[in-house]
C-alpha cells in the first residue's frame, strides 16, 4: 500500500516537469513579416532576398531582433550558406538588462554553397538566459552570409534529466589527446549537444564530476545528520562515508572501463575483423595498409613526397612505418621520384601528367603507378629530378 502511494506521489510530482516537452520556434527569415523584425547596427544595408537575409559587410556590424517566446531556449540552430568561413558572434540580451547590453559567444559559419545548419547549445554557455529578450549576430568585415532561418529549441526538465543520463554514457573515441587526458563523463541537456558532444574541443558540456561531488557532499551531510541523531561516533561516519565514496568510485570505474571497452571493440570491428585493404584504423583510416603496400616501391628510395590531409599525424605515422625511407613535403621534394597521395580527393593529375592543386602543379610530370581509390594513389615521376624541379618552377611562374 505504501509503495503504491509512493509511486502515485512520484508520478504526480513528475507530471508537471514532463508537461512541457520539447518546444521549438522557427524564425523563417524569408518571410517579409519576419524580416521586418530584424534590425541592423553598423552594417551596410542587408539584402532581403526571397529565402532569407543576405549579409555582406566591410565593417563590423550587428543584426538582431527582440524575441518574446512562451518557452525557454536551450539550443539555437542557424540555417545559412556562405562562400567563405566567417568567425561571427551570437548575441543575446538577458531579461532586465539595458537596451544595448548584449552578451556574445563565437559562432563559426563554415563555407557552404548550399544551406547548412550550425547548432549552438546555449545551455552549456555561462551567462545564458533561456528567456533572453533579444538575439542576434555580430559579423566581422568581409562577411558574406545568407541566413535562411533560426530555430529556437527548448526542452522540459524531465527531458533534460534523461538527456543528462544518456550524455553521461556517451564515449569519446580514441583521439590523439587520449594518451594525455580523457574528458570523462559529461552532462548535457539536449539531444543536439549529445549528438555532437566530442566534435567541438572542449566539448560544450559540463563535467559530470561536479554532480558526483555534489552528491558526495549531500551524502556526507545526510550520514552526519543520521549519525548525530543516533549519537554515532566518528569512525562510524568515516566508514559509511567511505562506503558511499567507493560506490561512486566503482561506478566511475565502470563508466571509464566501458569507454575503453567500447573504443577497443570499435577497433575490433573496424580493423581486426575486416580484410586487408578494407580495414580502417581510428583517425588514420587505412593508412597502415597503404604504408604496407607502398613499402615495396619505397625500398630503394631514401625519401618520398607525402600528400595527406593534415601534416603531423600522417607524416609521423608514415615516417615511422616506411623508415628508413623518409616522407617530405612537396616544398622539400626536389629529387624525390615517388609521391604518395593519401585521401586527397582535391588533387588531380592534370593533362601534363602533374599532380595539380587548384590548377597549380605540385609535382613534376609522372604517372599514377597504383590507385587504391579516388584521391589515394602512388605516383612516380618520369623526368630527372633537376629537370622536374625546373619544370615545376617554370610552370608555377607561368601560372596566372
Amino acid at each position, binding site marked *: 500500500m505504501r509503495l503504491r502511494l509512493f509511486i502515485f506521489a512520484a508520478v504526480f510530482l513528475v507530471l508537471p516537469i514532463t508537461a512541457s516537452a520539447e518546444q521549438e520556434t522557427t524564425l523563417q527569415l524569408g518571410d517579409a513579416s519576419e524580416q521586418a523584425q530584424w534590425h541592423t547596427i553598423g552594417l551596410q544595408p542587408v539584402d532581403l532576398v526571397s529565402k532569407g537575409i543576405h549579409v555582406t559587410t566591410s565593417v563590423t556590424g550587428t543584426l538582431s531582433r527582440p524575441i518574446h517566446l512562451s518557452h525557454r531556449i536551450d539550443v539555437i540552430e542557424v540555417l545559412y550558406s556562405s562562400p567563405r568561413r566567417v568567425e561571427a558572434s551570437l548575441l543575446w540580451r538577458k531579461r532586465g538588462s539595458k537596451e544595448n547590453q548584449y552578451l556574445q559567444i563565437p559562432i563559426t559559419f563554415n563555407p557552404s554553397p548550399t544551406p547548412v545548419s550550425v547548432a549552438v547549445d546555449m545551455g552549456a554557455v555561462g551567462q545564458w538566459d533561456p528567456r533572453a529578450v533579444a538575439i542576434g549576430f555580430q559579423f566581422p568585415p568581409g562577411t558574406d552570409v545568407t541566413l535562411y532561418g533560426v530555430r529556437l529549441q527548448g526542452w522540459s526538465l524531465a527531458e533534460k534529466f534523461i538527456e543528462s543520463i544518456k550524455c553521461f554514457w556517451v564515449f569519446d573515441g580514441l583521439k590523439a589527446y*587520449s*594518451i594525455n*587526458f580523457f574528458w570523462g563523463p559529461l552532462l548535457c541537456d539536449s539531444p543536439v549537444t549529445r549528438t555532437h558532444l566530442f566534435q567541438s574541443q572542449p566539448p560544450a558540456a559540463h563535467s559530470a564530476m561536479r554532480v558526483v561531488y555534489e552528491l558526495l557532499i549531500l551524502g556526507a551531510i545526510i550520514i552526519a545528520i543520521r549519525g548525530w541523531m543516533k549519537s554515532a561516533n566518528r569512525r562510524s561516519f568515516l566508514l559509511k562515508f567511505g562506503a558511499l565514496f567507493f560506490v561512486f568510485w566503482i561506478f*566511475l570505474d565502470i563508466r571509464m572501463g566501458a569507454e575503453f571497452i567500447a573504443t577497443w571493440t570499435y*577497433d575490433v570491428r573496424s580493423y581486426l575483423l575486416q580484410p586487408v585493404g578494407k580495414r580502417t584504423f581510428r583517425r588514420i583510416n587505412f593508412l597502415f595498409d597503404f604504408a604496407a603496400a607502398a613499402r615495396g616501391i619505397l625500398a630503394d628510395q631514401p625519401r618520398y613526397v607525402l600528400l595527406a590531409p593534415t601534416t603531423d599525424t600522417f607524416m609521423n*605515422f608514415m615516417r615511422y612505418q616506411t623508415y628508413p625511407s*623518409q616522407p617530405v613535403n612537396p616544398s622539400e621534394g626536389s629529387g624525390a621520384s615517388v609521391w604518395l597521395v593519401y585521401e586527397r580527393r582535391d588533387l588531380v593529375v592534370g593533362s601534363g601528367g602533374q599532380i595539380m592543386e587548384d590548377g597549380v602543379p605540385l609535382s613534376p610530370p609522372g604517372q599514377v603507378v597504383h590507385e587504391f581509390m579516388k584521391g589515394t594513389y602512388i605516383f612516380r615521376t618520369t623526368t630527372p629530378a633537376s629537370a622536374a624541379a625546373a619544370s615545376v618552377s617554370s610552370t608555377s611562374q607561368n601560372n596566372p
Partner: protein
Amino acid sequence: MMLLWLFAGLPLPTLSGWLLVRLCEGKHPVLFRLERWTLGFLLGITLTMFVTFLAHIAGFILFTRLGFLSVQGALTLFLVLLRLLQWRFSLRSSPLSAPQSPIKQSPIANRWLSGLLILLALWTFAKIAFGSFILVTTPAYFDDTLKNWNARAKVFSVTHTLDVGAIGEENAGTLSSYPPTVSLFKASLVSIAGQWDEGLVNSIHALWLLSALILLYCALRHRTGWQWALFGAYLLASLPLYLFDGLNAYADVFLSAHLFAAGSLLSSGLTETDAGRRQSYLRLSALAIGLLVFTKNEAIVLFIPLLLALFAGGLVFLGAKNRMTRRDFRTALAWTAGWLLAIGVPWVLFKWAHGLGFGNAKTISAGYAFGWQPNVPTAIWISTFFEGNWNLFFPLFLLVLILERKRLFQSTWTPLVLLVLATLLLQISLYLFTSLSVEALRQTGLGRGFVQLAPLMVMLVTLLMREIVVERE
C-alpha cells in the same frame, strides 16, 4: 605467432635481474618470491640494456642478434658466478639465512567485501586482457610512440647502431637525449625474432604495467593483509589514465614502476628495525635508484635528487637516533653512490659528448623561462578533479592526508609521505613557475607526470586508509 618471441627475449634479462636482486639481498632476503621475479624482470631489462649500451659505445658489439645475446649471455653468466660465490660464502659464514619478511596476516575480513574485491579484480583483469589484446594486434598510433619509442627502436634495428639524430625529424636530437632502454629492448626483441613486428615490440608495455601492479601488491602485502594489498592494486588499475598509458607504447608506466621500486624499497629500508634487513632494502633501493637514471630524462632532473635527499636525510636521522652503526652507514652510502656513479657517469658523459639535453622533450637550458604562469592552477584543477583521468583519486588523496595529518610525519609512513609530497610539489611547481607550463595548459605532460608518481601515491593512500579504518577499531 611472432608474439612468442617475447618469451625468447625475456628469460636472460629477467634471470640477470633476479640474480642481481638476490645478490643485493644477500644474507637477508626481504622480498617475496613473486616480488623478486617481478623486480628481476623490471630491473633486469634496464640493467641489460644499460650494459648493451656500454658494450656498444665501447665498440664491442652492434645491435644485432649476436650483439644482444652475447651481452645478455655474458651478463647472466657473470651474475651466476657471483651468486654462486655469494652462496658458498654465506654457507660458510652463516648456515642459516634470515627469514623472509613476515607476511601480515589478514584480519577476518567480511566475506562480502572479499567477494566484491575479487569481482573488481576480475573486472580489472578483463580490462587489462582486452587492452593488451588491442595493444598487440593494432598498429602503433600515438605521437610519442611514432616519434620516439618505436621509431628509435626501428632505427636501432635497421642501423644496428645508436645513431644519434637518425630519426629524421627536427626532434631527432631531443628524442635521442632520452635513455634508450625502452627502444633498445624492443630492438633486442626484433633482432631475436628476425623481423619487425608491431605486436611484438608493443607487447612489453603490458608486462611493465603488470609489473607495476604486482610490485605495488607485494609492497602493500609486506605491511597489510591480502585484501588491502589487492585493494591498492585495484585502485591503481582503476585510474583511467594510468591503465590506458600502461596499455599503450608509452614509457610513463615503465618509469613509474622503477620509481615505485626505488621509493618503496628506500622507505622500507629507512623504517626497518632489523639492521640486516635494513641493509638489504637499502642495497636494493640503491640498485633501483641507479637504474632509474636509465629510464627517462625526468628521472635525473626530478626524481633522483629527491630520492637522494630522502636517503641522506633518512641516514642522518637514523645515525642521530643511534639506530644505525657507522659501518652500516658507510656501506649504504657506498652502495648508493656506487650504483649511481656506475650508471649515471657513463650516461651523462655520453649525453655531454653528443650535446644531448636533460629536459622532458625540451632541453632545460635553452629557452627556459621562470616566473608565475597564469592559468596553470585552473588547468591543474580541471585536469585532476573534473576530467576522466583519475576517477576520484585526488579528492581521496586530499581527504586521507587531512584525516591523518597528525600522524603523517610521526609514523613509519613518513619517508613515503615526504617523497610523495615533495615530488608532487616539485612537479606542480615546475608547471606553475617555469615555461613547462605549456605542458599543463595543453595537457600534454601534466597527466603523464602524475602517471609516473601514481603507484607511490596509491601505496600511500592505501596505507593511510588502512590506518583510518583498521587502526582505530
